[in-house]
């Protein structure tokens, strides 16, 4: 039984393809994470799943219902916690939840008990009657999440649940998400551009970049696939660069090489034996090595290996232009 099933999902805005022919399924009870830089298509996909956008092509079933044919049934079965906090600042915490309960048609005689239940879960019971304007960012986010699960949806969507929060608050939110997951046995679909978040929360991760899914697997498998060690090099390039690369590829333990300007990332199954060989090749070709390091693979490295760039790089250069173009189109 799948909670989300999608086939050849495509969404374009004019000639900009935000989501490009993606197909995957999320199993019932799973925490599934969409990992990618800003503008990769994560939020667009989530907006299609939550019936806020209509796909240009393909289809999606959420909680067993088609987002195009039965949007109302989809809405009855989902909770959606947006990236921005959306709680009403001038209402109290409890009033915000009351509003959410009414929007989601929770029967009148159950409303109070449900609100008490989630307030207890997110540990805001003692602050419930204070105006949200007095809450900290983390408390607001918790309240927002509580609102999303008040009606016990089958699928809970969390769009960048910890963006803009400090690291302690972020960890705290992760704890709440795990608690929700065990207590309500919900399927959780989240998007994030924090590796650590995807790693610590998700059963499976889909890496998405430029509107395409690059890979879907468990975080553990992804890291294992890269071999168990990574050698990172920063070099001073010269005309022998290409032959340097060629020679490196010949080393038997090296599985994959990623280039990013002067930085080379070598995925290897035996880093300690690889390093002396690198030095030998570089001295033969007169390539100067400025730094070298040996590390265990992290999801960061997984991301680099599938997309060819670091997740933060994308934030600043390419996507700002892309987002800008998108906004311009939408406004016309």
């Amino acid at each position: 039984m799948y909670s989300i099933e999608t086939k050849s999902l495509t969404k374009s805005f004019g000639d900009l393809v935000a989501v490009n022919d993606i197909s995957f399924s999320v199993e019932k009870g799973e925490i599934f994470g969409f990992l990618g830089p800003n503008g990769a298509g994560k939020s667009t996909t989530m907006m299609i799943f939550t019936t806020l956008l209509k796909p240009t092509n393909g289809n999606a079933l959420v909680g067993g219902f088609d987002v195009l044919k039965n949007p109302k049934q989809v809405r009855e079965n989902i909770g959606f916690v947006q990236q921005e906090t959306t709680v009403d600042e001038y209402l109290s915490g409890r009033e915000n939840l009351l509003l959410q309960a009414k929007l989601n048609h929770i029967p009148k005689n159950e409303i109070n008990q449900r609100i008490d239940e989630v307030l207890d879960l997110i540990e805001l019971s003692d602050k419930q009657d204070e105006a949200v304007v007095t809450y900290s960012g983390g408390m607001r986010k918790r309240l927002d999440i509580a609102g999303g699960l008040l009606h016990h949806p089958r699928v809970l969507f969390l769009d960048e649940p910890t963006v803009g929060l400090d690291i302690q608050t972020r960890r705290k939110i992760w704890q709440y998400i795990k608690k929700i997951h065990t207590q309500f046995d919900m399927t959780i679909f989240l998007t994030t551009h924090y590796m650590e978040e995807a790693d610590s929360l998700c059963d499976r991760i889909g890496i998405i970049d430029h509107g395409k899914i690059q890979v879907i697997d468990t975080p553990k498998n992804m890291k294992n696939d890269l071999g168990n060690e990574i050698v990172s090099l920063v070099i001073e390039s010269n005309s022998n660069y290409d032959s340097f690369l060629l020679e490196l590829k010949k080393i038997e333990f090296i599985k994959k090489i990623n280039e990013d300007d002067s930085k080379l990332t070598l995925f290897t199954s035996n880093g300690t034996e690889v390093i002396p060989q690198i030095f030998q090749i570089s001295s033969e070709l007169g390539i100067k090595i400025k730094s070298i390091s040996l590390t265990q693979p992290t999801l960061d490295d997984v991301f680099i290996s599938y997309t060819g760039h670091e997740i933060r790089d994308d934030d600043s250069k390419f996507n700002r232009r892309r987002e800008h173009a998108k906004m311009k189109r939408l406004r016309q």
Partner: protein
Amino acid sequence: MNTIAYDAYTIFWRELKRYKKSRSGVLIRLIQPAIWIIVVGNIFSETQPLIQSVGFEGEYIEFMAPGVIILTAIFTSIFGGVNTLWDRRYGFMNKALTSPISRSAIAVGKMSAISLIAALQASLIIGIALAIGVTFPNPLMIIPIMGIVILFSLGFSGISVTLAATAKSQETFWGMINLLGMPLFMLSPALFPLELLPDWLAVIAKLNPVTYTILLVRELMTGVSEGGVPILLSVGVIFAFVIAMVAIASYVFTREVNKPF
């Protein structure tokens, strides 16, 4: 039908909660109409002979008080839709759109809240009018007057919600509101009787629903019928205006919120 009413009430409840918590907003919205009735009412007090020429016996300020009551209703309700833009920008709209409530219930809930708020503001202006010496020959008339103000504001909130749903930015919205609000107020017998307008302006004024609302409120307040417009016609025009605006607003709102913002 039942759920639409329940859903509209949910939105209505939220809008009123927000209104209640913004006490400064209540006062700020009163400043402009208070200036009109106190300042303009006195500036034009010497125009009493003009008013008398069309059969109105009282002070000028009593003549223009109904105009200011409706001015309050116009501006409170036509500004009222602006939070639709905030809701879309700050995610409340998406929250509502991903819940099972219907789109038109959101629009209807907003409009009813706006019209009630406009009526509350108008009643405060009636209070100010009474305080500065305007009299009601029959105080019971305040009940039908409030009914008319609520209905009329519902129509204007429809204009506001329609504009807010189509506008992509605050600037567009405020531009449109300014374009509409003042002319609709000035092209009516709010400050001077219809009979004193040049013919071509009188013709335009007679196409304006504000005209009929002011004539009706003035007749209920002062007992003087003006311009030969029967009460039934005025009531009919107001109802037609309200039904048309609510229908247009629900339709446009539903269509626009389904587009990405």
